[in-house]
């Protein structure tokens, strides 16, 4: 074990970000949010409240939705992180991104990366969410522009399209 009498020091942390292995040298208590934005240049995750209330810093860590402002980077070691930058397939938007565009789910855009990741997290677990389930899945993400209705509609539409795609892929008929 290290000798800690010399005081805090930076450590090397390896993890996977949007499918690519990355290494950073950081103080263990640096927030994952800051490491993503400042070290890795991934500025999609936003800082809103900085205390886990608003969800604008949401990312997926090992598949689970987390507020990256509340994750000390040491706890992200060896994990798989997905940020909003990792959702689209090249120039092809993710079904959620497309639906948000079409349904006016994004306005000023600050909450949008977190909203979309929270929605992606929900749809991975629940292919046919009810409106209430969508609202619950997004309840930790605050939006000050849209009034939420367009966001909920966008997620419902993405769920429908995702399901159609799933039916197409499996050869099932609706």
């Amino acid at each position, binding site marked *: *074990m*290290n000798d*800690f009498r010399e*005081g*805090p020091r930076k450590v090397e942390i390896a993890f996977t970000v949007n499918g690519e292995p990355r290494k950073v040298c*950081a*103080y*263990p*208590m*640096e*927030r994952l949010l800051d490491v993503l934005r400042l070290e890795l240049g991934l500025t999609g995750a936003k800082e809103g409240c*900085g*205390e*886990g*209330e608003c*969800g604008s810093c*949401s990312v997926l860590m090992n598949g*689970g*939705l*987390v*507020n990256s*402002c*509340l*994750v*000390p980077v*040491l*706890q992200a*070691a060896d994990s798989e992180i997905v940020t909003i930058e990792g959702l689209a397939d090249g120039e092809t938007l993710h079904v959620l991104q497309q639906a948000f565009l079409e349904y006016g789910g994004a306005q000023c855009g600050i909450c949008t990366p977190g909203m979309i990741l*929270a929605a992606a*997290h*929900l749809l991975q677990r*629940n292919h*046919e*969410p*009810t*409106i*209430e*389930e969508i609202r*619950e*899945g*997004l*309840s*930790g*993400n*605050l939006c000050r522009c849209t009034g939420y209705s367009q966001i909920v*509609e966008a997620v*419902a*539409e993405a*769920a*429908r399209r995702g399901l159609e795609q799933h039916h197409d892929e499996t050869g099932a008929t609706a």
Partner: protein
Amino acid sequence: MRANPSDYEMVAPGSLQAIVSLLAREPGAWLPIAGGTDVMVQYAAGKLPGRKLVSLWNLPELRRIDVTADEIRIGAGCTYTDLRQHALIGRDFPLLAAAARWTGGIANQNRGTLGGNIVNASPAADSLPALLAYEAELILVSVRGERRLPYVTFHTGYKKTLMAQDELLQAVCLPRRFTGYLAHARKVGARNAQAISKVCIAALGRMANGVVEDIRIALGSVAPVPLRLWATEHAVLGKRIDALVLALARTAATGEIHPIDDIRSSAKYRTTVAGNLVVEFLNRLNAESAEVGPVGPNDVLARWNLLPVGQAIIAIQPCCGSSAWAQKMADRRPLSDEAALLAASNETWRSLQRSDWIEAFQSHPRIGESRASEALPTQPPIQPRAAESAAWSAQEQQAVTDADADTKKILADANREYEQRFGRIFIVCATGKSAPEILQILTRRLNNDAEAELQEAAEQQRQITEIRLKKWLQR
């Protein structure tokens, strides 16, 4: 002022043994951090007392749930999501499942831990009254060994606990003896999600021969520590629940709590609401729990009582097209039998907004047609179990379907007139009514004023829902 990460040490030793050794070597120097939902907030505000943290996140020894015949042992590092996903907790410990559902949003549920909630010792924490009600025991571990103590003794004052500086909370044990009890939980906050409670209740009760045979009542946010209401329990134990006992219980409850004025609420408000919550629980206990057993008399209802809330909403939605009604019905679970279900439905229906009533009306097909209107702008994109609802509509309107062409034509014209007059489709409880009877009712109701007609339509919808609920139980 924001903390500077270069001032803080953090280690992740990766095993329980290594962590308790570290705590023993420098007692009080190392602050354990699990999912960080409390610690990182203090850190961000520059308010962490120490500069050394030891990570417990994802420690396998703390993140397991073991079930034996007598108890369930929940690792202190289990997240709220872990609790929500555990089938036995959902079935046998609904108070804890509800608290897990109410704590923060999904991201915080993925990181916040039961142990963290206990050790952080906020009197407003949602899970703590549930642990009091279930008479939890805690297992603390250190290099000196394990010790087990009743949770009710753990909090000694505001944010003070019995845990020694070299100790770590390892697990929470809940006895499996409360399965036959009515479980009642309610949180009163500024909004449903992401809100810290103004007052919350977790309670268990069982009636026998018309009197309260056993009872546990615990409240959060009404004292420096989460509180078990011993005096209130004593006031009702062995008694019939009548107006006098309810008054005694309210007096006892308001006498044994010590709420404060703070940013979220006032002492006066909390006192009133605490009394209301206790009375609400006792009323429900009286109404429902005579028949509540480990397994309900009706399989459909027993299964529905155990469903996650989202699925419960979908399952009951065909009985009434108002989404608020379905949500509230799901929230009122468990319901013990048909009488409790119908009573809950009637009460819920009467409590709804007008827009909710109209939403329910619009889910029906026009009398004589087979499908609900598709031209409605308010129709939600996803219609759960629409097929079932449509099948029931067809049964209900059988007499009209079988009527002769002339009658159908007259009925269709009258329907259109009604829609022009009131701006929505005509709702009538058609079960058992012939086409001429329906026409007679429709003609009479065309003379109603708007308010009287809304009330009459709502009453018809209430009857339709009641008939459908009865059919639903027979599936």
